[in-house]
């Protein structure tokens, strides 16, 4: 009898707990949608930012970078070489100068971003069977100019060089197979994987997409927490006062709300955007979803933990805005992870974005499956567990603090009345 009563009681309790959690969950939607700042962060930013960035970086590589030439040789060979350079996708010869000094003026005025100089003895040396040298000058204000210049000139020089080489070998009496063997003793092939066009957007955007999710969640949750602090009451406390031990319910109810919103947003950011803007997307959607669960949870609990320390709704944005950049560099997408010092690597493990970005890029861009990225996947679950505990602890601390204040206040009130 007693036993079944106990059972009944716990079942009843469970129902009540679920009901409370659902109330908190539903209420949280109210605090999200009734706050213009949060709506801007959660919806406007995470919908517009990916599209805007993708359109700005639409050109994956530079096309027809304007360059100048100084052709001291003015020969058939030099004209042919320059025509070849001009025909590449990377650069475009926009002006020809008689001297390097003149060309330098165009360079200084930033009309051109590169210069090719062909010396007067170019053709003579080629005719005499000697090695001819040309010079290139690259604008280093952006490495992408340099890259375009190198691609165009290297390709053209190698191509022309091969022709001349065969001619010279023939002249020395090597023909057919033996000429081929001498001209290219170790043929090599370079295969660029996953980002075949070496594109800038394909390289950077996947990381930015994850970062957008991470940062808008962080700032949005910070703003919600700051607002409730400003209003100087723990508005979820109302429901947790009714049933004791409400911290879990508060944390779970709130996080469920964020999780649902960002689960849907992730479909747009990680599913729609890469397709629409032709970014790499060879990942298995199921693997992506499996990864996103711990990533979103870890980010939510991490943000909830930090949010407890933000006194005002704007504080998070003002102090941590710059951190978006730090997180991008810590992820190891641009500056290689192998070359980040042990200290900063350890530091990077604090933030869900690090493994989130790496995991996402590996699945989405490199077609890895969830087993290949078990390091990232398990780390994200580890973070989820740790930050769930810290968030619960921080919320409990807050609830205790505010309920003490409530008690004190009501005590004072009763004292006032009795007086």
């Amino acid at each position: 009898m007693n036993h079944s009563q106990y059972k009944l009681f716990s079942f009843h309790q469970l129902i009540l707990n679920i009901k409370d959690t659902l109330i908190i969950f539903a209420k949280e939607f109210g605090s999200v949608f009734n706050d213009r700042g949060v709506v801007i962060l959660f919806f406007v930013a995470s919908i517009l930012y990916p599209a805007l960035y993708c359109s700005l970086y639409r050109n994956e590589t530079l096309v027809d970078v304007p360059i100048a030439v100084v052709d001291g040789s003015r020969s058939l060979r030099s004209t042919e070489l320059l025509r070849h350079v001009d025909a590449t996708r990377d650069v475009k010869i926009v002006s020809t100068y008689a001297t390097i000094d003149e060309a330098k003026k165009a360079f200084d005025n930033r009309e051109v971003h590169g210069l090719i100089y062909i010396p007067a003895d170019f053709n003579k040396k080629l005719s005499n069977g000697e090695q001819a040298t040309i010079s290139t000058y690259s604008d280093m204000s952006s490495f992408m100019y340099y890259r375009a210049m190198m691609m165009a000139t290297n390709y053209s020089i190698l191509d022309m060089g091969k022709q001349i080489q065969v001619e010279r070998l023939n002249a020395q009496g090597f023909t057919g197979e033996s000429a081929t063997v001498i001209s290219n003793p170790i043929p090599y092939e370079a295969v660029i994987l996953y980002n075949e066009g070496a594109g800038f957007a394909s390289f950077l955007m996947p990381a930015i997409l994850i970062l957008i999710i991470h940062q808008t969640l962080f700032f949005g949750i910070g703003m919600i927490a700051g607002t409730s602090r400003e209003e100087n009451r723990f508005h979820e406390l109302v429901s947790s006062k009714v049933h004791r031990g409400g911290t879990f319910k508060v944390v779970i109810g709130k996080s469920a709300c964020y999780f649902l919103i960002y689960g849907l947003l992730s479909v747009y950011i990680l599913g729609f955007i890469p397709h629409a803007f032709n970014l790499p997307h060879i990942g298995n959607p199921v693997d992506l979803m499996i990864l996103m669960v711990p990533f979103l949870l870890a980010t939510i609990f991490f943000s909830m933990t930090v949010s407890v320390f933000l006194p005002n709704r704007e504080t998070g944005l003002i102090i941590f805005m710059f951190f978006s950049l730090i997180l991008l560099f810590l992820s190891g997408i641009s500056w290689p992870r192998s070359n980040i010092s042990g200290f900063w690597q350890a530091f990077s493990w604090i933030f869900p974005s690090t493994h989130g970005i790496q995991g996402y890029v590996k699945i989405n861009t490199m077609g890895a499956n969830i087993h290949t990225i078990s390091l990232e996947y398990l780390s994200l679950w580890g973070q989820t567990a740790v930050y769930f505990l810290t968030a619960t602890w921080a919320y409990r601390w807050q609830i205790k603090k505010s309920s003490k204040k409530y008690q004190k206040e009501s005590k004072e009130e009763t004292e006032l009345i009795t007086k």
Partner: protein
Amino acid sequence: MLSNLQISITKTFKRELKRMVSRPIYFLSTIAVMTFCYVFFLTLFSEGQPVRMPIAVVDLDNSSLSRQFIRNLDATQQAQVVMRLHSHKEAREEMQKGNIYAFVEMEHDFASKAISNRRPTITFYVNDTYLIAGSLILKDITYMTELTSGAMQQQVLRAKGIDESRIMGIIQPIAMDTHLIGNPWANYGTYLLNVMLPGVLQLCVLLITVFAIGTELKDRTSRVWLETADNSIFAAVTGKLLPYTIVLTVLGIISNLLLYSYMHYPLNSSIGWMFLTTFLFVLAYQAIGIVFIGLTPVLRDGVTMSAFFGLFGFTFAGFTFPIEQMPYVSRIFSDLFPIRHYFNIYVNQALYGLNIGHSIVPMVALLSFTILPLFVYHRLKNAAINQNFPIK
């Protein structure tokens, strides 16, 4: 008249100094942020170029020749052979795990083919998902392979009795002599930090400007603020923002000193021009901050606008992806970002050491941003007096 204005400004200035030490946010969002960034970026990019990045080999031949080739690979500056794997599949997996950025595959009859002149092939697989690592490694191993095959060619041609003077002309008929203007070693620190540090600074300037003014409106202390300045909104804004102008300019100058004196990044003109530019840069962003809080004039909206505008500054500086390669509208749009003009001055002065005449237009552009607050003069004053905007 003038002295009255001076007195009003001084009073507001002193009031602001007190406010600055009253809450940690003022310190955290300026000095602490910049100090963190100095340490972070300078330590992260101390190498200049990433060296000895992990790669693998799939040596199906395992001959003395292939092992020699692997030793050569390991001796390159940017690559380091950390794994010897047995199959393509295994290598692909290590690459997907991110443990290696590239791998080199040599076929099983590599040596025998080489000896019998049947041309063995080598295949490089490079992961350009990590664009910097991938392209640097590819450049390095391609160069190494060219050298190796050049040495082989030299041997063969010598053995055939070709005249020494003709050998180089056969191996490489056209050579290229590359000059990297301004940054001869392609140092990533030079390339990125010259914009990253000012980039973080502009975020700080925008946010603290909006916060310093917006918090008066939000906390409903704006009337006291205006009274301190004897009801002159000009004196109120100037006196309030002057302490930040000083602190943020000093932080910007510390960035300059760290980049040019401590790290010895290229500086081909007087450092004084960079100091002046930094000062104008701070003023320009303070002006934009005033406009943002004047327009809204709600703290939270001003902060959101600043955050978005500040983050887009990194894109519109045009230092990674050049502006002229973006859609046409963004070229015009980029002129609205002071960091774009800062970048142009930096390239002209520090990187290329051009005549200062080249930088007059961007400097005037920076200066002209300071006119903008006039457009919100009345709106801001009315908001400060009437306090008729929501605080949330």
